């Protein structure tokens, strides 16, 4: 050991604090990068020598540059993202549907039903009046418009959910592929040297992004890769550097694509899967269950009105003394096809009378008005209006509860994100103080070299 050893320690110090400053620089530069985890230089004493007769260190060296990462938090973030993805997708679609059912501030089907039967009430006062008969036809038309508007809104929404599967599946596949690629890079990099911190950050961010769209479970392997499995069924989505592929069967039912999966490492053909979580799960649930359930109720209302009104109408007689024909299109099977019977072309065809001979009789019109107060829906427990009111209230309840769930999810996600930020986020103040610290250390190491040089000069001077 000699002065050169002291210079060596100084030189190491300069190198190491330069690296430390670089790491600080990296942290500062990435303060706003999503998914970035702050890094720190782990210093340790260099191995000692016993050249002096006693063990003594040979300065400092970098043990590793590591990132702050909490695997448990990642797990929770992934789970929370799946729930948030599902609830947000559901809530935003339901909120788009709600205005169509907002009977409170706008007149919709409920008001149209009341007006339709109201026009029959008017007809009871003047059964042969042309204006009153025209009013019945007009109000039947308004009812038709309302049914078709709601039906179209629901249909469009279902189509939109179905169409949105295409970009969603593409995006999931791209993410899976990226994760697999990054896995490969991480494995290769880490075989050669150290931690692939940035690559891991990017991969973990992609895993969190993926979890918004589908439910996943993941395992972190010792070689740095992360394996991902599908939460709905457990199929492998990413194994090492191979990724599975989602696909859509558009042939079997062009209006309702089926989701399929070719698991990682498996050979096609793809097998059908049934995603129930994440955005994908919400989209399928909306398309297959939630919106069709509303549609079924509107359809039930439309078909009941068609059959009941037609039955009563055919029991009466029109102004010409002919038996009444169906007022609403008897071929209608749902709200979309609900409509006035095309055969009704003249106001005289409204059957207000219960007698072929008496044109001024209003008994059939009276019986028609009674349909409104009869419990015709839900197995004879609800009137037409209260059935629809119930549907409106149910949609309101669904929207309200999904809104609540989303705000809870958001609060929970916010909490978790805060925790992650607290652990892994970059604090500029902290980095700045580190920077000063490293700068001082760098200056001290340089001073060490100058001092050693001066000492060396002294020694050389002695020789001269």
């Amino acid at each position: 050991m000699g002065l050169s050893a002291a210079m060596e320690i100084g030189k190491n110090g300069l190198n190491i604090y330069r690296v430390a400053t670089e790491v600080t620089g990296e942290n500062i530069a990435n303060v706003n990068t999503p998914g970035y985890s702050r890094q720190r230089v782990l210093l340790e004493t260099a191995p000692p020598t016993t050249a002096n007769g006693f063990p003594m260190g040979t300065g400092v060296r970098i043990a590793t540059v590591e990132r702050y990462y909490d695997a448990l938090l990642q797990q929770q973030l992934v789970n929370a993202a799946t729930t948030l993805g599902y609830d947000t997708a559901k809530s935003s679609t339901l909120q788009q549907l709600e205005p169509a059912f907002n009977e409170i501030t706008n007149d919709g089907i409920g008001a149209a039903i009341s007006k339709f039967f109201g026009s029959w009430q008017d007809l009871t006062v003047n059964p042969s009046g042309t204006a009153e008969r025209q009013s019945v036809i007009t109000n039947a038309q308004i009812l038709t418009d309302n049914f078709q508007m709601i039906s179209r809104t629901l249909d469009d929404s279902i189509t939109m959910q179905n169409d949105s599967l295409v970009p969603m599946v593409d995006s999931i596949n791209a993410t899976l592929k990226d994760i697999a690629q990054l896995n490969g890079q991480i494995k290769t990099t880490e075989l050669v040297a150290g931690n692939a911190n940035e690559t891991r950050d990017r991969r973990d961010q992609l895993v969190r992004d993926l979890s918004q769209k589908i439910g996943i479970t993941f395992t972190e392997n010792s070689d740095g890769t992360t394996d991902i499995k599908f939460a709905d069924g457990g199929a492998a989505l990413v194994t090492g550097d191979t990724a599975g592929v989602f696909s859509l069967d558009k042939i079997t039912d062009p209006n309702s694509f089926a989701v399929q999966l070719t698991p990682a490492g498996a050979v096609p053909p793809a097998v059908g899967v049934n995603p129930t979580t994440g955005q994908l799960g919400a989209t399928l649930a909306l398309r297959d269950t939630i919106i069709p359930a509303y549609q079924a109720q509107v359809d039930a209302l439309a078909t009941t009105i068609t059959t009941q009104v037609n039955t009563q109408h055919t029991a009466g007689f029109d102004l010409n003394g002919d038996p009444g024909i169906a007022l609403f299109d008897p071929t209608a099977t749902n709200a979309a096809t609900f409509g006035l019977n095309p055969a009704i072309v003249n106001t005289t065809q409204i059957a207000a009378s219960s007698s072929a001979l008496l044109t001024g009789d209003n008994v059939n019109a009276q019986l028609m008005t009674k349909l409104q107060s009869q419990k015709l829906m839900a197995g004879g427990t609800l009137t037409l209006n209260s059935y629809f009111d119930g549907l409106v209230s149910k949609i309101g309840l669904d929207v309200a509860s999904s809104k609540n769930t989303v705000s809870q999810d958001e609060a929970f996600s916010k909490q978790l994100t805060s925790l992650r930020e607290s652990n892994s986020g970059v604090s500029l103040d902290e980095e700045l103080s580190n920077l000063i610290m490293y700068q001082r250390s760098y200056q001290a190491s340089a001073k060490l070299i100058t001092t050693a040089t001066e000492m060396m000069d002294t020694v050389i001077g002695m020789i001269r």
Partner: protein
Amino acid sequence: MRVTANMSADTSVYNIMQGRRRLDRLQELITSGQNINRPSDNPISSRLLLDVGDKMKAFDQYNANIIKAKSWMQFSDTALTGMNDVMQQARSLMNTMNSGSTEPNERQNAHNQLIELKKQMIDMVNTQYGDQYIFGGADNLVPPFNSTDNTFAGDGTERQIEIASNTTQTISITGDRLLLGIGANPSYGTTNILQTFDDLIAAVGDATTPSDPAAITTAVQSLEPASRQIFNAINTNLSRMTRVDNMSKLNDINKNTLSEIVGNIQNVDMVKLGVQLNTEMNAFEASLSATAKLSQMSLLDFL
């Protein structure tokens, strides 16, 4: 806990959004004046509001029916009062002619008057409301009576309309019950009034035909129940009008009660909202100010 500037920024944004959301909601409540603007605001109350709204629409419809029924019955009343006058005139005429007359001119005069009165009677029973003959029953597009014979061309069905939930009211009086004295439920009398007029016309005689005092006496005896028959119809009509009037008031009262329920649910408490708005605005301003101040602080400024 380690806190970074980004955490503070996130928290600020989150809380500012929450504050905005609350302010937005308060603004909606204040500007709309309604607590419930969409079903999801309060699904349970929405259901009640819709139910009440349906009922209120029904009351509106019943009152619209009642208004039309009343004008129908007022038409009937006018016609019936006219018929009553005709009966009075016939009776006073027959008071002076109660044993006929030996004066041909006088007989002819009385004869002509009676024919005229019968015509008036028929004109009145043929009163129209719109294009409907109000005394024609359910066959009301043809005049119920003509001046040549005394047959009823209408139908004995009385018109009923709904004036409240499951409550119907008869609004028409049919010509056969009124002038021919036939039909039951209700019956106003059993006198064939038109026949009575015919009998009187025949009994009084004319310029060439002498009076038949015995026939006059018989016919005049029928005038009294005939008048009563018209009078009964007037009374029935009036009591029906009173009933629908009452029902209209009852409907209004019920509707008012429902309006009150709607008001209780829907009307916002402006004072309360004003206070809330103030509090929220203070909090919001404070959070904006805190964010602005805190986000500027950095160690960088002191190095």
